[in-house]
């Protein structure tokens, strides 16, 4: 191809290149604009990081050494925190299981129940566990029980969705085969579906248990018991050495729950 013949193509290519460059520049400017507006809205003040560092260093100094003499006070809230996670997960499983069956496209008995179950699961998930805790504290009073209820209801969201997806992805051939033997619907589910999906369900539930134990720490801040409640009280009373002890116990609980959950899930796999 001669240079003359190639000229229109080269001109067209340079226009395309220029257009792409302009587009990239506009995208970069838009990104900067988003970051700037976010900094304005959150009223970010970098100078406060410097002054705040002094305050933080002062708190750390006052929190050292952790007050291990008060360890006896911590056992009970620690147990409460773990049990909040266990109760919340079990409650969530009990409520999520029937919803998941209804919300699985391949097992649901009707489209109406499918959409209703999906709606309930979506709602339970959309409302944060802290908000559920506030609602239950108002309804049943302070203490670990409203926290456990909050975790149960919020867990429906994640457990219901993942359980339903597991059911939808299971191999339907054994289900069809059992149906044709004349087994009833409930028998097909218990003999065909449950054995196939149980390992996945247990893995999901263990992961949720790990999540719930971590969430239960925060729920204490709204009066729902556990270590979180003790942490809030200690901070309000400026007992920073107790705060550091509680943080150490929290760290141990979270890491232990995470490791145990991962270990059990690995064994299931």
């Amino acid at each position, binding site marked *: 191809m001669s240079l003359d013949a190639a000229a229109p193509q080269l001109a067209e290519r340079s226009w395309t290149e220029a257009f792409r460059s302009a587009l990239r520049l506009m995208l970069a400017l838009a990104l900067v604009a988003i970051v700037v507006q976010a900094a304005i809205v959150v009223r970010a003040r970098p100078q406060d990081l410097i002054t705040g560092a002094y305050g933080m260093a002062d708190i750390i100094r006052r929190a050292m050494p952790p007050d291990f003499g008060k360890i006896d006070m911590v056992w009970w809230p620690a147990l409460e925190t773990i049990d909040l996670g266990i109760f919340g997960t079990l409650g969530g499983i009990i409520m999520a299981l029937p919803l998941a069956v209804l919300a699985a496209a391949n097992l649901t008995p009707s489209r109406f129940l499918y959409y209703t179950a999906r709606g309930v699961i979506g709602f339970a998930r959309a409302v944060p566990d802290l908000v559920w805790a506030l609602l239950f504290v108002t309804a049943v009073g302070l203490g670990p029980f409203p926290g456990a209820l909050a975790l149960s209801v919020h867990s429906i969201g994640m457990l219901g969705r993942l359980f339903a997806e597991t059911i939808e992805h299971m*191999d339907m*051939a*054994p289900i*069809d*085969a*059992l149906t*044709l*033997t*004349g*087994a*009833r619907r*409930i*028998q097909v589910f*218990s*003999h*065909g579906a*449950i*054995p*196939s999906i*149980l*390992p996945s369900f247990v893995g999901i539930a263990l992961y949720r248990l790990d999540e719930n134990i971590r969430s239960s720490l925060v729920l204490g801040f709204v009066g729902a018991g556990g270590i979180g409640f003790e942490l809030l009280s200690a901070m309000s009373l400026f007992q920073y050495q107790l705060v550091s002890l509680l943080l150490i116990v929290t760290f141990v609980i979270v890491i232990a729950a995470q490791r145990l959950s991962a270990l059990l899930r690995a064994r299931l796999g």
Partner: protein
Amino acid sequence: MLRVCGLTMRYPDGKVALADFDLSIEAGELVVVLGGNGSGKTTLLRCISRMLSPTAGEVWLNDTNLAALSGERLRQARLPLAMIWQHASLVRRRSVLSNVAAGALGRYGGLWTALGGLPTVERRVAYDYLGAVGLAALAGQRAGTLSGGQAQRVAIARALAQRPQVLLADEPVASLDPEAADDIMRLLRHLATHEHLAVLCVLHQVELAYAYADRVVGIRDGRIAFDRPWAELPRDAVRQLYLNEAA
């Protein structure tokens, strides 16, 4: 025992998979259905078992027209009819014995079986059926660890646990090696001859049809091309079924 009259299946897209199909099969008979891909073989079995609802026609199992039933009445009426598939369709995480005993679930109601339990008597009987298919030694093994041929034998034992009068087999040897395929066909022949089951088997292997069938039914474009005892069946007629498909 099993009689199909004027069975017609038209899919929502207008495609006619079966047209005015007639077929009957008696106890002790092994009838093989041959036909090219998409000729309507599997649709025939699915309509007979009522996994699909035929557009028209009747499916008589003894004195009951399955095509006219639905729900609980269909479930009850279908109990004497068992089916095995190309893939064994076992519950892989359950033991071989539990898979076989599950074939009897249709005869039991109650909370125990609804919660995943199996009647003790059926476990014992299941063991006998596993013996009948030569796999009693594997009773405690997980179904997921079996070979294709073993899994298909377990599926047959599960079908037997249902105590059927009619056994439908949809390409039961399609994924097996020749030796395992021969074993399965010999077993089906044995069930027809000695257990007096009516066996209706869809196959692609013409040689197996000649070796084991009492009668061969040819199916082309959803219609019967021939229905004859194998001894009277010219090879050309069978070849014609597949030639048409190639064209």
